């Protein structure tokens, strides 16, 4: 975005205005410096272990940081739990957004759904985690996790993914809803005006139109879920390696417990159980890169969404 430059010199400014401008510059630069400092510190601390093999070896038990392996399990765990969370949050979020934007009847119910979504957007993840613990220990949900002798363990990828999806859901709903609301009404009417039903219009006109918003919302949601630690520590089991249940390949893994980058960092932080700070920093760098990639995707599709639109 380009701004027109005002043709004036700041010499005629009042001192309060100059101070204000100086402050704006200062905080802007300070923020950049802080960010750069964090990244540089992460690099300096973590670079020693940031070797390709770090990505594809499992964590091991060892006495020094050289012996404790890599982050394969947390990396896989992150991918699995996020895929699960988004696999739930995206369709459900799109459904809620379509209903809120295109139907929303009865109006009272729509208002309730709307405030519920907003409430979830602000809910601390510990609250969700706590609720998840209670919910997934219920025996009728026992098939989702490990069940020994009638006692449901209640920890694993399914509970963690389900709760993380609630964290991501409001972001998907908001993004898709904004996309739908940005579609002028005459576009819907144009579809009705050639004899199409509302359902056909939603499926064939509106949903394709908000595809970039669906992707953007999912990526922002995934980024949000990616950074969460509390739900992971409490509900995924924080077991350092993927411990499957049963013998079915993927399903077994999902029923079992695991680890993600955030819980790996949490455990290896100087205050954590394992205290391997350099490993934590290396994993933090990897996490940062993943978030960066998600942001780039959001940016690309955000631009795409703005590119082709009606007047």
């Amino acid at each position: 975005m380009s701004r027109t430059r005002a043709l004036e010199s700041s010499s005629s400014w009042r001192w309060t205005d100059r101070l204000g401008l100086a402050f704006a510059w200062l905080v802007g630069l300070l923020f950049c410096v802080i960010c750069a400092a964090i990244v540089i510190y992460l690099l300096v601390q973590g670079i020693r272990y940031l070797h390709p093999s770090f990505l594809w070896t499992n964590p091991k038990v060892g006495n020094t940081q050289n012996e404790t392996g890599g982050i394969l399990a947390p990396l896989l765990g992150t991918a699995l739990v996020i895929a699960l969370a988004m696999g739930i949050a995206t369709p459900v979020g799109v459904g809620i957004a379509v209903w809120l934007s295109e139907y929303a009847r009865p109006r009272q119910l729509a208002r309730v759904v709307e405030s519920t979504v907003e409430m979830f957007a602000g809910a601390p993840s510990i609250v969700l985690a706590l609720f998840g613990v209670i919910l997934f220990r219920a025996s009728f949900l026992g098939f989702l996790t490990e069940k020994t002798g009638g006692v449901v363990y209640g920890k694993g990828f399914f509970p963690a993914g389900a709760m993380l999806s609630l964290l991501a859901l409001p972001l998907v709903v908001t993004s898709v809803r904004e996309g739908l609301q940005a579609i002028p009404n005459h576009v819907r009417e144009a579809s009705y005006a050639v004899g199409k039903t509302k359902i056909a219009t939603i499926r064939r006109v509106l949903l394709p139109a908000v595809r970039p918003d669906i992707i953007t919302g999912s990526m922002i949601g995934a980024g949000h879920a990616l950074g969460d630690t509390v739900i992971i520590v409490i509900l995924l089991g924080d077991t350092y390696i993927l411990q499957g249940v049963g013998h079915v390949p993927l399903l077994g893994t999902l029923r079992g417990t695991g680890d993600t980058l955030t819980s790996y960092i949490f455990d290896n932080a100087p205050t954590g159980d394992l205290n391997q700070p350099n490993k934590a920093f290396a994993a933090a760098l990897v996490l940062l890169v993943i978030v960066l990639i998600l942001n780039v995707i959001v940016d690309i599709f955000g631009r795409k969404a703005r590119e082709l639109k009606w007047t």
Partner: protein
Amino acid sequence: MDVINQPLPVRQLEPGATLTVRRPLDGGTAQIRLLEEAILDTSFVSSSTERHVVVPTLERMRVEELSINYGQKPAVRSVSLPIRQGEVLGLIGPSGCGKTTLLRSLNRLTELTKSASLIGRVTLDGVDIAELEPTALRRRVTMVFQQPNPFPMSVFDNVAYVLREQAKRKPRKMSLRPQVEEALARAGLLEEVRDNMDHPALRLSGGQQQRLCIARALAANPEVLLLDEPCSALDPQSTKVIEDLIVKLREEVAVVIVTHNLQQAHRIADHVAFMYLGELVEYAPGHALFGNPKEQRTREYVSGAFG
């Protein structure tokens, strides 16, 4: 027998008169018999566009004593008029006069507004449109809007969307191709998009987008085509292309156009209805309404006294 592609004075033509007209579509000539009295004013005929060539008319729709209210607020008051194939009907009037509401009631789009209520009758080929399935009616009476609004898909799919059953996705893409091409050709867009039918429709220029919307509306093979200020968002060049197209289309479909642009109504409409505060003030052949309006309010409006 008269060939009317040369300047001629204003003349009165009796019903039953036969005349040879040049067909704008292919430049050939056709002989037609007039069903009703007509006045031929060749001062409108520009050598390049051959407008105001008389074509035979056939009544498709009839609006009978139609009143539409939004809640308590009347928008259209007891309007009656015929809509004929073979002519362009122009609806003019100041903003809020009910002309767009009248247009939207013709394919029951007014029903999408919850507060709208309707008294009176509109028939399509003699059948009350209230008795038709809305989706079936809207395939027979299609509409083009003020803002070009192609769907966010390829040029081809925009037209094919209309041809496919409701929500179905892609049955036999190749089998739809002839119909898609025909619709694009009728809208005068085929030559420009033939090589990039798979490009996103929203990449086309505004004028092309609007012609794509016309192609989409024609793909359903409607009897009546409704146009709601189709050129108001376009530049003069694109406007001219679309006006020429509308004049051609009136031979195949009944065309109703709402316009704010009096010159446009003058240029392309065979009959013009002037509405004011929901009432139909005057309905007359275009040249009569603009040249010699009977009503005081029409005279004031077309002379620019208000509106």
